[in-house]
């Protein structure tokens, strides 16, 4: 184990690593079902690859980008047709109205041009607060936040490279509890459905 683990957690991992008792007939039961199944072959698999429906998981941003790309191709082809004879293929003259953009940059997420990002959280009852994210390997000790003079607000400013960063706040209460909190002022990250979602910040123009 390369990472430093809490001794309790390490003990749990060590115990969980012990082999489990397995019913010796289990493999026989698998093989009984396998013998009834259709035999696999590479040829059938190749054919299945062409005809099998499949789903393509896309994030909303990629989906919007694809849609914008398709619209762009349509507009480009439309211009090509108009340029050829000044008429569309049906021969009817038509004015192409300019299309509004699919989404403005404000719609997509927070875009901040500067690479120094200030994280702020109001947590008046916290004993200490830290920001964790992919930029610090989710290490709660790496980026502690400072309590402002007014008392209830915590903040830290850090330099981030351009790109999309997922983050959350780790709030330690005075009674020893630890809570992961999303940024209430930022968009939520879609990839984590664990009850305490993370937030997203996009840094610089390259992330859009």
């Amino acid at each position, binding site marked *: 184990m390369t990472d430093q683990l809490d001794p309790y957690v390490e003990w749990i*991992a060590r115990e*969980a690593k012990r082999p*489990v*008792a*397995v019913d010796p007939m289990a493999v026989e039961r698998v*093989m009984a079902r396998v013998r009834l199944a259709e035999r696999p072959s590479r040829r059938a698999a190749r054919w299945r690859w062409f005809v099998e429906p499949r789903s393509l*998981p896309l994030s909303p941003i990629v989906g919007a980008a694809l849609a914008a790309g398709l619209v762009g191709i349509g507009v480009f082809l439309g211009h090509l047709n108009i340029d050829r004879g000044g008429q569309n293929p049906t021969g009817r003259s038509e004015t192409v109205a300019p299309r509004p953009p699919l989404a403005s940059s404000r719609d997509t997420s927070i875009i901040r041009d500067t690479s120094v990002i200030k994280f702020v959280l109001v947590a008046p009852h916290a004993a200490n607060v830290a920001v964790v994210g992919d930029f610090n390997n989710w290490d709660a000790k790496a980026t502690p936040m400072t309590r402002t003079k007014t008392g209830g607000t915590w903040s830290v400013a850090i330099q981030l490279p351009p790109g999309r960063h997922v983050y959350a706040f780790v709030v330690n209460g005075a009674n020893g509890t630890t809570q992961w909190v999303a940024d209430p002022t930022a968009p939520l990250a879609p990839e*984590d459905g664990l009850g305490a979602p993370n937030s997203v910040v996009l840094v610089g123009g390259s992330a859009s």
Partner: protein
Amino acid sequence: MTRPPRGWVIAKDMSDDAADVQRVLSGDVDAYAKLVDRYYDRCARFAIRMLGNRDDAEDALQSTFLRAYRALGRYQERDRFSAWLYRILVNQCRSIAARRAHRERVFVREEALLLNAPDKRPAWSGEDEELVQRVLNELDPLLREAFLLKYVEELSYEEMAALTGAGVSALKMRVKRACDRLRERWERIRDD
């Protein structure tokens, strides 16, 4: 002395796996029993720890090995067979966990784990086993899955990403959260 061809230095189990897969694809169904035998125990450990229930774990294992057999024609030898099999197992465990989400959660007990098991199996304190399974069961499934893959199966984050479809960053976050919650729950259970 001639230099061995590229890729010659490979783990023995990889070459065994590839040979067995080839035999199965050539029509030797019994060769599949060797693959099942080779990986059943390790897969069983993950499934039991993940699902916390021996019956559900066996369902997951049966459907994993059956699906792997049916899909064997699509297996590419450049991939490790174990990683390919684990990807199927992780998905089966997720499906079964989702199906039983409405059922009452059952904590696994050592007695249940040892049901039908031969006497020669290693014996250790059932209390520790039960405690470990309890704290694992109380984790969110995605956190439990990430923790088991990282610290029990000892996969790298890149391997975990290939298995689960999640990003490395998300997986690191899940492992971190799992460790935090395990520590909190362990301390609570210990103090009860």
